[in-house]
């Protein structure tokens, strides 16, 4: 059992639907003030204000992107310099290790790996791919509704339902 009384079960709780980012933000604030921290919030559009209301830090994806950039740059140098040393043929009167053309390969591979690392780190951190949708997800959340799900066991469901009911939701549903 965790402190929300759900035993870590994200299919037990209360879910409310809203028609705007602002309404969803107010609901998150009310819930957090009352000590409900185990929330899942759905939005059809990117909404930084909701991340802020939930107290989420900025994403570690940027660190992975930087690692990708450094790896790509190093790979570009090792590949072009290594290939040139393995087959040391002077062309165009340039030195065997000739930085200006190698820089292009380093640059391109840095960009390539930054993009690949950004994509895959986003997927890993967002727990994707996932074959089944969460029990608290509703199809309307990809259209024009914002959803606030609060995980709450039987003892706290009434409280959560009351609090969410006071935030002018379009619908409230208890998932027992």
């Amino acid at each position, binding site marked *: 059992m965790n402190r929300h009384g759900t035993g870590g079960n994200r299919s037990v709780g209360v879910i409310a639907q809203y028609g705007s980012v602002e309404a969803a933000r107010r609901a998150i604030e009310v819930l957090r003030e009352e000590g409900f921290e185990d929330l899942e919030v759905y939005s059809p559009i990117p909404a930084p204000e909701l991340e802020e209301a939930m107290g989420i830090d900025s994403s570690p994806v940027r660190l992975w992107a930087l690692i990708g950039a450094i790896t790509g740059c190093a790979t570009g140098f090792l590949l072009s310099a290594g*290939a040139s040393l393995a087959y040391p043929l002077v062309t165009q009167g340039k030195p065997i290790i000739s930085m200006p053309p190698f820089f292009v390969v380093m640059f391109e591979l840095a960009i390539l790996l930054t993009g690949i690392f950004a994509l895959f780190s986003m997927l890993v*951190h967002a727990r994707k791919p996932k074959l089944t949708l969460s029990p608290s997800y509703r199809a309307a959340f990809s259209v024009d509704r914002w959803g606030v799900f609060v995980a709450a066991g039987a003892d706290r469901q009434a409280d959560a339902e009351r609090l969410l009911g006071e935030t002018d939701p379009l619908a409230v549903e208890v998932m027992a």
Partner: protein
Amino acid sequence: MATAAREIEQVYPTPTLADANEDICRPILVPSWRYALLLSIAIGGVALGGAAWAYQIHKGIGVTGINHPVGWGVYITLFVFWVGIAHSGTLISAILYLFRSGWRTTINRAAEAMTIFAVMTAGLFPLIHLGRVWYFYWLMPYPSQRMIWPDFRSPLVLDVFAVGTYFTISLIFWYTGLIPDLAALRDKFRGWKSKLYGLLSLGWEGSVREWRHYRRAYLIMAGIATPLVLSVHSVVSWDFALAIVPGWHSTIFAPYFVAGAIFSGVAMVITLMVGLRWAFGLEAYVTEYHFENMAKLMLLTSLIVGYAYAVEYFLAYYSADPIEQDSFLWRAFGAYAGPFWIMVFCNVIVPATLWFRDIRRSIPALFVIAVFVNIGMFYERFVIIVSSLAHEYLPSGWGNYTPSWVEISILIGSFSWFYMWFLIFAKTLPVISIAEVKEHLAHEQAHEQAAGRVGGAE
């Protein structure tokens, strides 16, 4: 503030979030005979190009018009042309994203798709041009038994990296942008369609925790795609500029090619968006306002391209190098004077009409101008490549080139291949980014509500 509000009003008229979902998803996977006809024509063109390529593989590269001294003909012209077309997609999606230009939202998806299909088309041409296509893997740096590695000081090898990276990053960027929309399609459909889009959306739910990583990744991708766009056509231009051929050996080639690429790419976006808007009834989303902005971008890049044409002539004159001067005189008045003047007419004179606001806001006029620009940019690449090679240093080494029927068939095939993919895209995926349109609509609603509250308090 007033300007921002007016801009939002111009970008989107009045659809609600649910309308946007419905309007954009409506044509997806719905059969129509017009679509089937267009797709059949495109597939027919691909079959023609494919047959011509098969014939070339069977008979050898001698069936083309390429010979000494013009070793690069229509194939390399088309390679440069299609890489150029690919440029405006990432320009619109990445650079305008970083500048927070609201007008990009309705056109970025189609422009990005166009980028990917244009690179897919461009990528075929080095292979077709190889002749013995089964040796294409020699381009790759891998430890072989022969101990021979590609020459990393050659711009041709750098080009493999530039175009390969551009394709991969454009694909990743496009797919990342598609994920929330694929989830919207999953939720809209039932049965196998829902399962298919569900798989493609990777189980996206739009939770705030997902968006947090998504927003960061998308911003990083836009950030890296921006220098990448500028680098790719620069590297392509060095395929020419690093050779000592008169007409190619020039320091202005990188910016000249990048401007030309954006110019031709925007023209292609206009050509395709006019068709999509008409076919799918997207008038409420893609308005004159968007077309006018694209027209301005086309006018700007036309001026840069026109300036580059003039500077090339000035540099030839100022170099006091008789061979350089002769090469440029021959370009305008020699065997390829026709293509040269078509290029000047289509790329400099026709786009000058865009100075008039009424023309910029007239969609039929813009369509015609964009088609002229597409033709003009093909001829620009042709003139640069062929007229320079045909008239190098020694008169004994001069010689002209005429494309054969095989090359013309492959040219038709390449346009059909590009349109085939675009048509498939238009029927299977949302041609406008649903999530981004909704984001703007939601901001507009919030803005109106805030204005209403202020008005009420007064």
